[in-house]
C-alpha cells in the first residue's frame, strides 16, 4: 500500500500547529477530494471551504508546498509528481488573514475590490432599456479578464503584497479595474485607472507570480501594464513610476541597452537619487555587488548602440503610433 501524507497547517483562532494525516494513495483523487476524505473519515475538526468542485466558483484555493492551486482542479498525482514526494505541505493562501485552518478571510478583500469602482458606467448613447453595442473584437479584448473567479491564487504569492500590503492591492483587483477600463462600452475608462493609480499601479514588482499562479491563465501583471499605458497615454506622466518606464524606453530607443545606473537618477531625479540612494549604493559597493570603476563606466562610457537597434526603434515607434 502506498501511503500519502498531508502536513496541514492548522489554526483554531488562537493556536497554530501542523497536523499530519496519512491515507492510501488513489490515482482518482484530487487535492480537494483528499481534504474531504480526511475531514469525513479522520478529523471532522479540519476546516476548509469548497463549493462547485468544477473550478468555476473559486472557493477551494490552498497552497501545496507553498504554491497556490485550486484544490478541486489539481490532481493528487500531478502534485506528487511535481514535488517528487508522497508528503505534501497544505497551507492556507498567503497574503490573507487566516480564520481557521485553510479558511481565509475574504471580507477585507471585498472592500479592497470595491476600490476598482466595479460595474460598467456605460457611454451616453447606451441606456438600460436598449442595452449596448459592442463588436466581437471589442468583446474579445475584455473576455479574458472576465474569467476571474476570485479564488485568490494570484494574491497568495504576490511578493509586493507580502512585502507591504498597505500600498498595493491584490492582483485580481487590477484585473477587475482593467476589464472596465478596456471595455468599449465604458464612458470613462480613466475612472477605474485613476483609482488604481492611487493604489499601487506603479508598484508592481514584475515577479509574475500572479501570472504563473492564476488557474484561469489570466495575467494580472499584464492588466497592470495595460492600465499604466492607458494612464500614460492620458497624460499621467509625472511621478516615479511613469518616469521609470520612460527611462526604460529612452535607454532602449537610444542605445538598446538598459543602463541601470542611469535608471535611478532618471526615475527619481538626480538630487533625490544622490541623497535617497546613498546608503543603498554604499552597501552595494561594500558588499562587492558593484565596483566604483564599473559604476563609473556604466554611467559615462557604456553607451554604444547595440546591433539591430534600428529594428528595435521601429517596434517602439510602431507601438507609439498605435
Amino acid at each position, binding site marked *: 500500500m502506498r501511503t500519502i501524507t498531508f502536513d496541514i497547517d492548522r489554526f483554531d*483562532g488562537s493556536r497554530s500547529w501542523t497536523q499530519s494525516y496519512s491515507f492510501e494513495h488513489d490515482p482518482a483523487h484530487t487535492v480537494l477530494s483528499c481534504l474531504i476524505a480526511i475531514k469525513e473519515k479522520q478529523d471532522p475538526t479540519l476546516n476548509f471551504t469548497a463549493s462547485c468542485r468544477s473550478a468555476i466558483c473559486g472557493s477551494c484555493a490552498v497552497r501545496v508546498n507553498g504554491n497556490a492551486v485550486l484544490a478541486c482542479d489539481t490532481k493528487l498525482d500531478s502534485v506528487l509528481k511535481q514535488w517528487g514526494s508522497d508528503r505534501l505541505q497544505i497551507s492556507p493562501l498567503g497574503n490573507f488573514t487566516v480564520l481557521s485552518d485553510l479558511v481565509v478571510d475574504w471580507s477585507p478583500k471585498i*472592500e479592497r475590490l470595491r476600490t476598482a469602482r466595479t460595474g*460598467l458606467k456605460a457611454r451616453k448613447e447606451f441606456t438600460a432599456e436598449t442595452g449596448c453595442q459592442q463588436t466581437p473584437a471589442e468583446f474579445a479584448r475584455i473576455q479574458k479578464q472576465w474569467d476571474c473567479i476570485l479564488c485568490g491564487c494570484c494574491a497568495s504569492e504576490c511578493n509586493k503584497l507580502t512585502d507591504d500590503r498597505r500600498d498595493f492591492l491584490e492582483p485580481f483587483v487590477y484585473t477587475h479595474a482593467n476589464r472596465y477600463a478596456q471595455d468599449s462600452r465604458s464612458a470613462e475608462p480613466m475612472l477605474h485607472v485613476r483609482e488604481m493609480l492611487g493604489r499601487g499601479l506603479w*508598484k508592481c514588482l514584475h515577479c509574475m507570480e500572479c501570472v504563473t499562479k492564476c488557474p484561469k491563465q489570466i495575467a494580472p501583471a499584464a492588466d497592470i501594464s495595460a492600465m499604466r499605458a492607458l494612464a500614460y497615454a492620458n497624460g499621467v506622466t509625472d511621478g516615479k513610476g511613469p518616469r521609470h518606464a520612460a527611462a526604460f524606453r529612452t535607454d532602449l530607443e537610444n542605445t538598446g541597452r538598459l543602463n541601470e545606473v542611469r535608471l535611478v537618477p532618471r526615475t527619481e531625479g538626480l538630487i533625490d537619487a544622490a541623497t535617497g540612494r546613498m546608503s543603498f549604493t554604499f552597501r552595494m559597493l561594500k558588499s562587492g555587488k558593484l565596483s566604483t570603476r564599473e559604476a563609473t563606466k556604466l554611467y559615462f562610457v557604456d553607451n554604444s548602440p547595440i546591433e539591430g537597434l534600428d529594428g528595435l526603434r521601429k517596434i517602439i515607434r510602431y507601438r507609439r503610433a498605435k
Partner: protein
Amino acid sequence: MSEKDFDDIPSLSRRTFLEACAAVPLAGAVIPDKAFAQTADAEGILGTGAATGSSDVASCDVLIIGSGGAGLRAAVYAMRTANLSVLVVSKTMPSRSATCMAEGGINGVVQYQGQKDSLESHAFDTVKGSDYLGDQDCIDYFVEKASEAIRETDFWGMPYSRAKDGRVDQRFMAGHQYPRTNYSADKTGHAILHTNFDYALGSGVKFLVDHQLLDVAVEDGVCAGAVLRNIKTGEIKPVRARAVILAAGGYTRIFWTRTSTPYIATGDGTAAALRAGLPFKDPEMLQFHPTGVVHGGVLITEAARGEGGYLLNAKGERFMERYAPGKMELAPRDITARAIETEIAQGRGIGDGMEAHVLIDLRHLGREKILERLPQIRHVGLMFENVDLVEQPLPIRPTAHYSMGGIDVIDFHTMATAIPGLFAAGECGCESIHGANRLGGNSLAAAMVTGKEAGIGAATYAAKAGFAGETALQRLTEQWRDHFRETTARTKGTNFVELRDRMAQVLWEGMGIFRTEKGLAQAAEALRQIHQEYRVATVGNSAPVYNTAYTHYIEVGNMLSLARCAVLAALNRRESRGAHTRVDFPQRNDKDFLHHSLVRLKGDEYVLDQRPVTIVRYKPEERKY
C-alpha cells in the same frame, strides 16, 4: 494630473525588495489590512439601538439571505428603490453560488432586424416545457421582464458574446422554437454572477459573509428578522429587519452523492421558510440531467453527445436505438435520462447499486477533435474518474441538476410570500415559472427577473413597515444557542455525514428518475428513521471558531426536512409530469393533478395541500417535440 499626488510611500527597487526578503522571512510580519478600505464587519454594518428602539439587537431595513444572481440583483434594486439600509448575508464569499456554474445562457427575447421571435413564443415554450404546471400569468410577466433583463445587464457590463453587427448574440437551446438564449462563451452563469456582484459592489451594497441563516422569525404573523450564526466566531445572534428576502438557492443537494450542484446548495432558505410556517411548493419537481460522472455527479455537458459521442451499455450496444431510434444520443434530456436508468434497471449497466453506470464513448471522434472541441469534458473525466476520454469511455449516470420547487410565492409582481415582510427569489422561490420542468437558459433569466422584483417589492414594503416585535427572534436565538451546545457536546451516536449519504441513496433509489408507490413509501419511512437518528447524531467538533462540521450538520438537517416534503408530494402525485416520472402512473392526468403541491410543517408532521395551476391562454395539450 500627476501620479505624484498619491505617491507618498517610496517605491521599491527590485533589489531593495530582494534585500528585504533576505532579512525577513516571507511569512513574516502581520500587516494591518485597513489602509485602503474599512473592514466589513457585522458591527460596522448593522445599525443598533436607536434605529429600532431596542438596546442591543442589530438591525437593518432589508436583509437579503444569499448572494447568488438573485440575491445580488435584489440588493441593487432594494437600494435603488428607497433610501434604506440593505445587507446581503452569505455563508460564503458572495461569488461561490450555483449561478456561476451555469454555462449555456440566459433566455430573453431581444428585438433586432430579421428576428422572428416574440414574447408569446417564449411564453408558450416555457409553458409547454413546464408540462403545463407553470402559472401562465406569471410566465407572461416573466418573459417580458427577462427581455428587459438582457438589455439591462448588458448596460451593467455583462460581457455578452456578440453578433457581427454588435448586438448580443443568441444561440439555440433544446425546447425553444427560436434562438433566444443570450450567452457569454460557455461561462454565462459565471459572467452574469460577476456582473451582478461587480454592480452591487459599485452600488455600495454591504456584505456580511461567513454568516449562516439559522431561522427566520415571525412575530404576530409578520416577519421580524432572522437568526444568524457568525461562522467566524460561532456567535449566534438575532438581526431585526423590516423585510427579509430569501435568495438562498435550491435544494438539489438532497441527492448529495449524485448532483451537479455546488456543496452549498442545501436549501437553507427553503427550510427556514418551512419552519416559519410557509408552504413548500412543488417539492417533488427536481430536474435530472442525463449525463454526470458516476462519482459525485459533476456534469458532462450536452456538447459531448452533440459532437457525436456514443452511449454504451455493458454489452457495448448503443442502447439509444431502443428508445429514440431517430435521434439516438441527441434525444431530449428526460428521454435520455430514462433510457440510461432503464438499461441499468434491466441489468445492462456496469456495476451495482450506487456504482452502477453506463458509458459515454468519444474515442471514434479522434484525439484531435476531442482536444479541440471538448477539452473541458475530457478534463472533467480526468479529474473525477481518472479516465482519459481519448483512450477510454467514461462511466456516467444521470445527475440531479435543478430544483423547480421552492418557497411558495403568492405575488409574482413583488415575490411576496404569505408572511408579510418575507420575500423569496431565485431557485429558492417558486412563483411558478418552471412548473414541472425547467427549460435550458430559463434559470439565469428567472434569477435576474425574480431578484429584481423581490428587491423592489421588499424595499417598497420596508419603506412603509415598522420593525416587528423581537420576542420570537430572542426565543429562536436562545434555542439555537442551546442547540449548538447540546449537539456538539454529544459523543455517542451515528456520524451525521453517514446519515447524509444514506439520505442521498434512499432518495436516488426511491425518488430518483423512476418513482413508484412502493418505492416512495419506503423512502418516506427510511427518511423518517434517518431524521430521527440525525437528531441524536454526532458532529465531532465543538469549537466555536469556523466550525464547518456544525455548519454542515445544520445543512443536513435542512435537507432531510426538505427531502421528506419532496417524497410526500411525489407519493401523492399519481401521474407522470415533467421531471416527475411515476412508473405506475405513466400518463399525465390533468383531471386530477393540474395543481401545485404545497407541503407545510405542522409540529413534527408534514401536511400536503394543493392549489390549482393558473391557465391563461394555453390549454394543456400533450407535450411532444
